[in-house]
């Protein structure tokens, strides 16, 4: 259980622009063990999607990647594309937010699935068709034989997402990287995908890195969760530890802002200020301009991660000791101007 399948150490991703350099990821650390579902949460622009892309060596140019990403012991950073072939779709596979855009509209689902299978295995046509059928069955796509001959536009959003998961899992990867795969879906279909991913993780010992901004999905699906802010992981721990006794002020605020079913007409807490411009990240701890607990030390030094308990780590000079979450409505700052 403790075997590390996906290890990210001090990952940095920069995008040089003409007059400035955007630091999308600034020393992120992440470790996912075999059979574990790790959630990676944060707001738009925090670097979570770039971290995911780096796992497959897919950071687009002119992005510069440094640090280490190892997938089942295979170092990804710094490798040319041809050496990454066994990783992409083989050791690790990825599913995306919008299945309608990720699949090619010109080819049938069957053709796209068998292409992937034949790229990684020396299967004949009939054999790869069998593997494709099996993959579609494993994601409970109704009438898999018919689905093989369908074009993407002939399937619904939920069916497309199942087809994409089938394609990702066809070559039996060790790690599945899921970048907001349920964000574009209706709640009813989202619930189907959550239950399916949980079932696949249990049945195959699949390791999943699940990127989302929806804390409800994290609570319902993940074993552990990493919270990202301004290109760094600021808190990591079991879902229960992080969601029930968050230690980082950012995690607490994030949790307080989510409207929850059953709360009625309550005023919602929000985080004052804005997500920092990553071309000019704040000095010290990147969250200090928006943090109630910030003190002079926060503006000077970026806190290192420290252990709070079993597997619960936080990077904050003034972390909460755990216990109660902030009650909504008690911690509002001034509205952003």
């Amino acid at each position, binding site marked *: 259980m403790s075997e590390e399948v996906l290890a990210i150490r001090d990952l940095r991703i920069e995008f040089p622009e003409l007059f400035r350099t955007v630091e999308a990821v600034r020393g992120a650390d992440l470790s996912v063990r075999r059979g574990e579902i790790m959630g990676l949460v944060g*707001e*738009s622009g925090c670097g979570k999607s770039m971290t995911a892309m780096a796992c497959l060596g897919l950071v687009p140019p002119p992005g510069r990647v440094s640090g280490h990403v190892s997938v089942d012991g295979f170092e990804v950073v710094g490798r040319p594309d041809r050496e990454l072939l066994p990783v992409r779709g083989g050791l690790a596979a990825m599913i995306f937010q919008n299945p309608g855009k990720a699949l090619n509209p010109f080819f049938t689902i069957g053709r796209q699935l068998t292409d992937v299978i034949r790229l990684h295995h020396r299967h004949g046509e009939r054999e790869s068709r069998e593997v494709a059928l099996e993959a579609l069955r494993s994601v409970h796509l109704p009438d898999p034989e018919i689905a093989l001959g369908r074009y993407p536009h002939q399937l*619904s*959003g*939920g*069916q497309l997402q199942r087809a994409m998961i089938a394609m990702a899992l066809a070559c039996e990867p060790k790690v599945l990287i899921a970048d907001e795969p349920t964000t574009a879906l*209706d*709640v*009813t*279909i*989202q*619930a*189907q995908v*959550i*239950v399916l991913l949980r079932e696949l993780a249990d049945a195959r010992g699949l390791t999943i890195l699940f990127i989302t*901004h*929806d*804390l*409800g*999905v*994290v*609570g*319902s*699906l993940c074993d552990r969760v990493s919270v990202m802010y301004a290109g760094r992981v600021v808190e990591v721990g079991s*879902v*229960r530890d992080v*969601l*029930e006794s968050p230690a980082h002020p950012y995690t607490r*605020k*994030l*949790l307080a*802002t*989510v*409207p*929850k*079913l*059953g*709360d*009625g*007409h*309550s*005023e*919602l*807490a*929000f*985080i004052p200020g*804005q*997500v920092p411009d990553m071309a000019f990240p704040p000095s010290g701890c990147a969250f200090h301009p928006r943090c109630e607990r910030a003190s002079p030390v926060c503006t000077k030094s970026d806190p290192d991660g420290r252990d709070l308990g079993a597997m619960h780590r936080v990077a904050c000079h003034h972390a909460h000791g755990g216990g109660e979450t902030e009650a909504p409505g008690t911690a509002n700052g001034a*509205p*952003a*101007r």
Partner: protein
Amino acid sequence: MSALLEVRDLDKRYRTRHGVIHAVQGVSFDVREKETVALVGESGCGKSTVALSLLHLIEHDGGRVRFEGAEFDQLKGRREQELRRDLSIVFQNPYSSLNPRMRIKDIVGEPMRTAYGTRGRELVERVREQLEAVGLGPEHLRRFPHEFSGGQRQRIAIARALALEPKLLILDEPTAALDVSVQAQVLNLLRELQRRLGLSYLLISHNLATVESIADRVLVMYFGRIVESGTVSEVFNDPRHPYTRALLDSVPSIDPSQRHRLKPLEGDLPSPLRPPPGCAFAPRCARAAHDCTARPPPLGSIGSREAACYHPLGG
């Protein structure tokens, strides 16, 4: 309390190459003054079609719409123009609903210029007031949309929608494109504006938690029809229609100990080109019986609310 907006038997069919799609079928509801009514349902259920036909952005095929006591559909020319000032909309995506080549003062000022011919210093003064109402300072007047974050853009879209002092604001998924922390700011702003200006809202959303946090009443739509309606607390705490129950059971809980309660609804939406006979939800419904497939159930009252189901839950 009198109804500000009365919709009766609204009907809309889209004619496509493959056949006729009956997108909205016999939808009736009221929105009263200072009230927030939410329209919820999955994509394709017809909720946006309802909103767009209220604004006459698309023509509906049947039914009538009364707004402030007047037959809205039959008004022409100036009377229509006047009444339309009282009805406005905020769209889902503030990245596409603001013209990237216009400055904020022109975006927010355009409705006042067109409707009242306001010009010059007076217009700038009015725009400044509108921006202040949504929490944006005068330094933004000369800026372009790309200089703003998503939450700020949605504030600008709200300022524009409020420029003509409407009575009813249609909110089409106003927070779906925003991050959670910003979502909360926009919801709080909408609530505050409603209190201060006495606005009515018709909120279109698929996010049930958002609906619960600001709406008074809710209409649940499935496949072009309203299947349940009532106060938010009644409908969410004690749903009668199996579809409403299924929607609620699909919302993932942030509390990991509630994980087992996530119950996905089986199957997909039926094809709108080949609607199932009878109740459209019957093929996915655990309670479906013979009578469900014979005729679509009418919306009937159950206590203080309405549900369209032959075999409702509870009671």
